[in-house]
């Protein structure tokens, strides 16, 4: 049997497990909806009025997408690993032909599908609720690899968190502690010029920055995006490999 068959088997089991946790399904899709409603409809953007949301509404679409690409894989993969550890499932899997990279690939693919659907919902709501207009062209399809690579990257980081944290509570705390600073210091909602000049180079240290820049280029500014995609791909590979190594065999 090929590795693909093993990945398929792990994917199907994980997908069914996700769909049957109704609370998880609800909040996975409620999350992007509430983000758009709060920031897009309630706070609203004020392009000429200054303040935090001073850019055109299309500017923030990359931020909305960054929220789901960042938070959902971190918490989902981290929690999944914590559950696996609590149930000694990795010890069992270590005696099967399934490799750790195949396991993480299967769970990354599940997250790509889930977050892809959540991203579609989010884009649709952005257009309907805020009236944002997204330029459509062949390049718009590049949103797919941006989301897939972003999700894979943060699945790798989630695997590291899940392996280091001792419990699901620990995973949630660690995920929040890492994700919140990343979200606001990655050119998502806070523009670089609102930050001190000395800090601005540090934005390049956040992997989410390259996601936000690339997605913004596709959905708002029309600037070049390929370099951001390339950097994101490199980082996704690095985090995937690190996540694979971090997954434990026994607990």
């Amino acid at each position, binding site marked *: 049997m090929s590795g693909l068959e093993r990945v398929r088997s792990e994917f199907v089991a994980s997908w069914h*497990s996700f769909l049957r946790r109704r609370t998880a399904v609800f909040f996975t899709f409620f999350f992007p909806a509430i983000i758009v409603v709060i920031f897009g409809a309630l706070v609203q953007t004020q392009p000429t009025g200054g303040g935090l949301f001073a850019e055109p509404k299309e500017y923030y679409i990359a931020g909305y997408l960054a929220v789901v690409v960042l938070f959902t894989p971190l918490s989902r993969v981290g929690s999944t690993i914590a559950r696996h550890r609590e149930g000694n499932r990795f010890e069992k899997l270590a005696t099967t032909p399934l490799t750790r990279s195949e396991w993480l690939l299967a769970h990354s693919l599940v997250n790509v599908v889930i977050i892809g659907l959540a991203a579609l919902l989010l884009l649709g709501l952005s257009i309907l609720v805020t009236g944002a207009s997204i330029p459509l062209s062949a390049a718009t399809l590049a949103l797919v690899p941006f989301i897939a690579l972003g999700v894979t990257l943060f699945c790798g980081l989630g695997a590291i968190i899940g392996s280091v944290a001792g419990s699901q509570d620990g995973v949630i705390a660690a995920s929040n502690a890492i994700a919140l600073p990343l979200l606001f210091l990655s050119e998502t909602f806070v523009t670089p010029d609102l930050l001190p000049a000395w800090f601005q180079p540090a934005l390049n240290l956040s992997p989410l920055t390259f996601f936000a820049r690339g997605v913004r280029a596709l959905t708002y500014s029309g600037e070049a995006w390929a370099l951001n995609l390339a950097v994101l791909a490199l980082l996704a590979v690095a985090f995937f490999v690190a996540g694979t190594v971090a997954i434990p065999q026994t607990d």
Partner: protein
Amino acid sequence: MNEVLVADGLRKSYGDVEALSGVSLSVAEGEVFGLIGPNGAGKTTLIRTLTGTTTPDGGSASVLDGHPTDVDRQRLGLLPQDFRPAGRLTARELVAYYAGLYDDARDPDDVLDDVGLADASETWYENLSGGQQRRACIALTLVNDPDVLFLDEPTTGIDPAGRRALWSLIDDLADRGTTVFLTSHSMEEVERLADRVGLLNEGRLVTVGRPAQLVSEHGGESRLVVRTDGDVDLESLALPASLSGEVTDDGIVVYGVGPRQISAAVDAFDDAGVVYESLVWKQPGLEEVYLSLTGEQFEGARPAAAAAIGGDR
């Protein structure tokens, strides 16, 4: 007979705790080997070392003539201690999931039938009873039809009927030639299933042998455990010369009581006017071996400072 599991001087420490201190043993093809020992004795660490999920600090191990990490996963089956698979997959989905991880797997429905779960195959794992859950876990270890099966406390938390059903299943596997390495806290289970038994205590393999051999060497004598209503003066008991007695917290234990001497011992109690609540005749078993070699105490064990009367011991 071909040895499929070999441990040679295995050592493993976790910080200051020495989990394995030079453990050596071998298990032959088709043998059921039972490993007993107190909590923390190193049983799970030994299984992890043999399955390649933990690296020993010293010594070596081989499984099916290869290093544990290099052995063909198709030929191994493992039920880890406290294993809990995904709760919201049906029993059939769980078996199919694990079947999908192997090159050559059995039909999930056949496996579920083998463990007696055919009627519950569409029930979520979390909704199965405790015994059914454990049988589902066993099914996951059988889906690849392994040559060597590791079962780490497989019947923990199962009711007596479920436990006996699993014993029957393990018997069938052994009859078909599967090598089984089993750990358990149930002496009855190990005595019932194992061809040979090893006792691990504080990381050391204290003894290995066939259950009857271990009982003969370390189990001590058969005895009569008498629970009395109040204190008893041993001097007042006219026990036959071949018997000896000891006072315990709950009554008296009379040692060396064979089947033909039970009535004589009971007569001695009656003649002395001892009021007793219960009389239990016990033959030595693995439990006595375990307690004798680990130094743990139990009801009816010989207290260190107990008074003794009767024949020479």
